């Protein structure tokens, strides 16, 4: 709530060069992507943008970390950061909601309709005779898959279950690290935080392995009908978020090694931990609705 006894000392940075560099970087990347997708040029056209973006992330965060270390931020600024991060994570949740929505729509409406259930009997009768609504499916047109347009799926028991364990464990270790940080136990903090990002990268490794298998042996690809589409979009965006989260954990870990963060003030640590929990929860949704049910 309004807690502005120190409102006069709220830190307002002066002319920052980072945002404009960020905008230029994004613009370059997108021009590169447009050029690549339109087959005007190759992938290399991303390069300048990507380099600039990396420089930007490094520079912007260095600036802020520097300010933080010098004690520029009072509690109110800290509070702003926290709220900002919370709402950012909420926006990410809504991004995933779009893809979950697509999954539910396909499973509960479009595939049954194509199979002649509900209000769309004639759809099946006139256009797709013989198609039966089952899940998983690559649709009445048998899009993609192996040469005979069949495809295999990845059972929930196996790597996905293992990955679930890994992520849940990492959620635990990051909490332990947080407790250690608050208790001032730096050794324990370093250990558990290190474990967390290692678990994160392990998850990504397994996921990559699973993808390889799906592509090579199962005929399960992004282009394997609606099952492949929803499967890879959901797990893919999740995997991307895990990767980003793990990198952020690594950065935080390096900062811990440098002696950053105090038991009272450690916004960056908390932000990353929240992000990690968010990634965790999304995975649970995936595990249940994509792999299991």
């Amino acid at each position, binding site marked *: 709530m309004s807690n502005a006894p120190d409102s006069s000392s709220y830190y307002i940075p002066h002319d920052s060069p980072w945002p404009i560099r960020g905008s230029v970087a994004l613009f370059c990347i997108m021009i590169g992507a447009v050029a690549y997708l339109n087959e005007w040029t190759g992938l290399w056209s991303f390069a300048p943008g990507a380099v600039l973006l990396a420089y930007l992330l490094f520079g912007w965060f260095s600036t802020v970390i520097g300010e933080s270390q010098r004690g520029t931020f009072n509690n109110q600024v800290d509070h702003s950061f926290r709220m900002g991060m919370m709402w950012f994570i909420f926006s990410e949740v809504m991004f995933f909601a779009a893809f979950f929505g697509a999954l539910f729509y396909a499973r509960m409406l479009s595939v049954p309709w194509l199979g002649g259930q509900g209000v*769309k009997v*004639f*759809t099946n*009768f*006139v*256009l797709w005779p013989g198609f039966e609504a089952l899940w998983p499916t690559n649709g009445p047109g048998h899009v993609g898959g192996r040469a005979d347009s069949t495809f295999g799926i990845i059972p929930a028991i196996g790597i996905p279950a293992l990955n679930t364990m890994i992520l849940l464990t990492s959620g635990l270790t990051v909490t332990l690290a947080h407790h250690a940080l608050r208790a001032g136990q730096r050794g324990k903090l370093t250990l558990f935080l290190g474990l967390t990002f290692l678990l994160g990268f392990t998850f990504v490794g397994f996921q990559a392995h699973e993808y390889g298998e799906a592509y090579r042996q199962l005929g399960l690809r992004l282009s394997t009908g609606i099952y492949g589409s929803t499967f890879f979009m959901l797990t893919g965006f999740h995997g991307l978020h895990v990767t980003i989260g793990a990198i952020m954990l690594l950065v935080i870990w390096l900062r811990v090694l440098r002696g950053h963060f105090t038991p009272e003030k450690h916004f960056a640590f908390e932000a990353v931990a929240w992000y990690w929990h968010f990634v965790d929860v999304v995975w649970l949704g995936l595990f249940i609705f994509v792999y299991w049910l």
Partner: protein
Amino acid sequence: MTIRAKLASLASAFAAASITLPAHAHEDGGSGWSQLNMTQGVTDISRKIYDLHMLIFWVCVIIAVIVFGVMIYSIISFRKSRGAIPDITLVHNTKVEAVWTTVPVIILIAMAVPAAKTLVEIEDTTKTELTIKVTGFQWGWQYDYLDDGVAFYSHLDRKSNKARELLSGIDPNSVEHYLLNVDHPLVVPVDTKVRLLVTGADVIHSWWVPDFGVKKDAIPGFVNEAWFRVDADKAGLYRGQCAELCGRDHGFMPIVVDARSKADFAAWLKNTAAQQKQTAQAADTTASLSAPASAH
């Protein structure tokens, strides 16, 4: 007050529109100025829709007259220039607020009931007597009388098609039914519940004939159902247009329905079926003759 005058004139224009409109404005709506309101159409459903439309319209007009009336009254009487003193104690009044929350709820429910009734009727696709598959494509319509082996395409007629070219130099006013005419209209019998199975071949189109009160999207890969029953005494030509943006020539894929008496329709169907069988056979023979030739 200019606002009031304008509103009054607009309202009267609107009201005049609803009164002066001929009972059924099918076949050419007359000049532009007189075309102000929705058609009543030639089916039971289209009339019910028209009634709903007028009902909600008048409800809105009445509410508008009351609300705008109070606003205009305030604007006129509570002017500072007339020495009005503000009553700054007037900041809220639970009773009044409760009234103006509940009254709209009641009005809306009262509106929803007839709308829901009509909707239920529209959605009742049982007991149809004739089924026609309608496929929208870029840019025209294909009609397929599923039970009778008759199928044909329907495109914008030649004359309109020529006149509508960029800078064609042809005055659209000189073209009969400019943009609303086709080469092969859909032929249906009157007084018959006709079921349409609407689908799209490439992108989404929408089959719309205002006089029937039917508008249904043609979704590729899915089939939507719609139906209409033209009044027994309303044989004639009815025109509509594609009502979903479908690319470059979206504006140039009209729909014309030729509603005929049952006997005329039966004759037409028999004729056309025979004709189409003949041409199909002829095409078959040419195909079988030419096929080995092209193999060389």
